[in-house]
């Protein structure tokens, strides 16, 4: 049963995952955290951080981790392959169809139209992680370490395009000394 659920969830994510790794976060979070409760919201945040610091696609990393924690080694392989399965099918059918210039323009224009919605999806994933589990000191005392880290990291990332790995390492060091 758990194998079927993993298969279904990750095939679905593979089919609907437009717009890269971050765009998939919202889909994965909804299924894995909200719907099935396979991961807590802090575990999800921790895995995103670990994925950032290790090589390889973030969605494959999450699939492997979720598969492993819910159904062991077999589950981790199943979840990862389920995520790739739609791509395998597409390589035979879609590529030939879209290498034609006219259809290619249709595809890229569709994706262009999809972009604002995908941005909203990613933003929603971030908002869903803004809770007391991830910001444990929120509303307690005058100094909010977690809010400060979040704001500074946001400014560094958005305005200065700071390296995400560096930001994670610095935040970890701050956490170590501050808590």
């Amino acid at each position, binding site marked *: 049963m758990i194998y079927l659920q993993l298969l279904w969830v990750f095939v679905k994510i593979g089919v609907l995952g437009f717009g890269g790794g971050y765009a998939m976060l919202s889909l994965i979070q909804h299924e894995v955290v909200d719907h099935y409760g396979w991961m807590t919201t802090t575990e999800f945040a921790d895995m995103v951080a670990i994925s950032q610091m290790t090589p390889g696609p973030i969605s494959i990393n999450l699939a492997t981790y979720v598969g492993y924690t819910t159904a062991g080694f077999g589950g981790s392989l199943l979840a990862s392959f389920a995520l790739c399965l739609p791509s395998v099918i597409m390589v035979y059918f879609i590529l030939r169809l879209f290498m034609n210039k006219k259809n290619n323009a249709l595809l890229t224009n569709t994706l262009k139209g999809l972009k604002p919605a995908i941005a*909203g999806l990613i933003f929603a994933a971030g908002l869903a992680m803004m809770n007391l589990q991830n910001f444990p000191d929120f509303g307690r005392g005058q100094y909010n370490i977690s809010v400060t880290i979040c704001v500074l990291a946001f400014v560094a990332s958005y305005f200065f395009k700071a390296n995400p790995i560096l930001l994670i390492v610095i935040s970890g060091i701050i956490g170590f000394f501050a808590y």
Partner: protein
Amino acid sequence: MKKALELFFCFFKIGAFTLGGGYAMLSMVEKAVVDQKKWIPNDEFWDMIAVVQSLPGVFAVNTALYVGHRVAGTKGAFAAMLGAIIPSITIILLLATVFREYRDQPVVERIFKGIRPCVVALILAPSLRMIKSAKVTWKTAIIPIAAVLLIWWLKVSPAYVILTAIAGSLIYALIIRRRETARHETRDGKEDGA
């Protein structure tokens, strides 16, 4: 078979050593596949990437599949895909066992308490950058705002939001195509008349 093995090791190396996601990987794939092995000519490679980028799924996996398939057929596609994902799966399996063992340690917990708010920022920042690059105006801002409210507030599955957005964008793209075809036809008509 030799080519399939070469593809496997090529993508294995890329999968094991590139940090920073799909786009960081792309320049390494280009270097290996176009410059060094000369498996695919430069312009064909970038035409293919343009299509692959618009498709759903894991970008690195899609790229590996298409390059592998183009170079050595079905065998090549699977060899390249496995090469791209085996390093990630191995690393996460190793880390998962260690992480579950030690995540309740106070030291680890303190470090991750600092990291979690940073992760939230690292997700919010690219979404706003994407809104900027998609040239969202005050009028079209309704789309991302509606998506956020539906998912975050009303807890609608993002799957439905994506499906609706695809339907909308496809209609939009078809209208553009139709308008362009119509423009070509009138122009061709005039040329015939002259």
